[in-house]
């Protein structure tokens, strides 16, 4: 990869203080839980600290110097995020707590929207069996509360969306199609543009859960075909408590407010209020100011490396991990087994061992993986397992860490006497 010339993992690792952490028994940390949350470079932490120590004030409210500095930094973060995902307009970037809030925002305002967007009795919402709970439960709540119907696409045995009945599931009754771009459990990269084409044919809105996609891939929101799309800061080197909902400008302008209060208003009288245009209409209350500024610094960090290089590294490390894991007897990968249309999360089973036990032994060697249902119970049910173990790297992950995982799994086998 010619793009990866400047991409030196060892140099990058020096930016992440936590990677120097020694765990119990003086073991170095092998952090393979980045799909759950990423670690933070000091550039982001310095930005946070500098903001609080030098510029802290509330935004969009004060005419004093700190207020102007804080507002300028906060709005500059909006510009940075818009550029990062190639949003046509900065006003399309709504700051949320995370993708979960973004998806709930969409599901809620669609209950209250004017036609043609309102979801009501007889309408259908389509999701997939591959979704994170955050893209299932909001739609269950919406359809239950409005009398609409929830439908979904299934999954093939090799962990791809089953599109064979696409035209039967997405029909003239479909108002919304909401799906994950990159699965946090299977790793699958879904053909979102193709699905969006079908959805738009029938006049449905397309919502994307891009929580795993934006951190890993060079991103262009308009190329996805989505009308609305959410992602989360803490998975892309940013602080917790911050995420982004992107939406087409004309669509956002046509949607009613979500929460009320603070700067989302134009005028407030006791009898009734009028509302500010997007993005402020959807940002009630004091926003996560420092967190947005920190996320801006994270976007700067990723852009400086180049998202092509980040993606290339992710692919390389994933290919290596897939190869090493598949070579271990009794390891069974759930999801695509090659890097073709595949992100970095690798979920697997190991004989009959329970992921908690696998994770606990790995942890005693300093290796951090996730064990459980990864907030995706339906996918697990689909593959007939209650839980799985998941390894996920990021731009700071080395081949040596994948080797440590493979060696660790042999220790797990020894410890439990896997039969």
């Amino acid at each position: 990869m010619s793009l990866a010339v400047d991409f030196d993992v060892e140099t990058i690792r020096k930016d992440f203080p936590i990677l120097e952490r020694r765990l119990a028994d003086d073991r170095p940390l092998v952090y393979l839980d980045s799909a759950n949350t990423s670690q933070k470079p000091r550039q982001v932490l310095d930005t946070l600290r500098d903001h609080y120590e030098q510029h802290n004030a509330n935004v969009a409210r004060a005419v004093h110097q700190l207020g102007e500095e804080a507002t300028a930094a906060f709005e500059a973060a909006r510009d940075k995020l818009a550029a990062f995902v190639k949003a046509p307009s900065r006003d399309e970037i709504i700051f949320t707590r995370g993708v979960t809030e973004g998806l709930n925002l969409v599901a809620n305002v669609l209950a209250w929207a004017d036609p043609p967007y309102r979801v009501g009795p007889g309408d259908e919402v389509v999701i997939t069996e591959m979704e994170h709970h955050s893209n299932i439960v909001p739609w269950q709540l919406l359809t239950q509360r409005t009398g609409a119907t929830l439908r979904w696409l299934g999954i093939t045995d090799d962990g791809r969306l089953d599109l064979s009945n696409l035209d039967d599931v997405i029909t003239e009754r479909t108002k919304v199609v909401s799906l994950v771009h990159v699965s946090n459990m299977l790793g699958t990269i879904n053909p979102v543009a193709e699905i969006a084409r079908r959805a738009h044919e029938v006049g449905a809105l397309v919502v994307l859960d891009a929580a795993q996609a934006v951190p890993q891939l060079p991103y262009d929101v308009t190329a996805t075909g989505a009308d609305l799309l959410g992602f989360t800061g803490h998975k892309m080197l940013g602080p917790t408590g911050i995420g982004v909902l992107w939406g087409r400008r004309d669509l956002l302008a046509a949607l009613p407010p979500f929460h009320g209060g603070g700067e989302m208003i134009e005028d407030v009288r006791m009898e009734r209020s009028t509302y500010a245009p997007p993005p402020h209409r959807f940002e009630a209350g004091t926003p996560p100011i420092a967190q947005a500024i920190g996320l801006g610094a994270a976007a700067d960090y990723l852009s400086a490396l180049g998202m092509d290089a980040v993606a290339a590294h992710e692919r390389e490390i994933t290919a290596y991990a897939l190869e090493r894991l598949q070579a271990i007897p009794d390891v069974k990968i759930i999801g695509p087994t090659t890097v073709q249309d595949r992100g970095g999360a690798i979920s697997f089973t190991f004989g009959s061992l329970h992921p908690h036990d696998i994770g606990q032994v790995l942890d005693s060697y300093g290796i951090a993986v996730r064990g459980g249902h990864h907030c995706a119970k339906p996918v697990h049910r689909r593959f007939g397992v209650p839980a799985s173990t998941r390894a996920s790297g990021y731009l700071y992950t080395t081949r040596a860490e994948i080797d440590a995982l493979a060696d660790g799994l042999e220790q797990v086998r020894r410890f439990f006497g896997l039969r």
Partner: protein
Amino acid sequence: MQLESMYQEIILDHYRDPHGRGLREPYEGESYQVNPTCGDEVTLRVHLDGDVVQDVSYEGLGCSISQASQSVLHDLVRGKTLEQTLAIGADFLTLIQSKGDQAVADSLEESLDDAVAFVGVGKYPARIKCALLGWMALKDALGQARIIQSGGHHG
């Protein structure tokens, strides 16, 4: 001192003694604008005679910058053609968005006259809306007036 770069003497003069304040008849376009952050508001009317802005009348609540900017607006566009008025509006926007660039101000002196005094406001993002409130109302009111006029032409 910093403060004078925003509050130039000309601005304070217009603030203390605004020109053309008050709402007058007749008018073809009217606009109400509010600054959600501070609650400032303006109602502004335009009276066109053919292509010419005969009068701009206005009333509202606001800080010295918004009041002075409306007074200056009144002086600048009265008697101008529609096209000239829109050009002046565009120049004022350029001035305010120049972040206080004196070179920009100098280049716009012919078009904006006294109003170049507002260049300093561009250094204070929170006040930019104050300076533009009346101009936003003007643009809106002119739009309405032209619809009425063109309706007249067709009808």
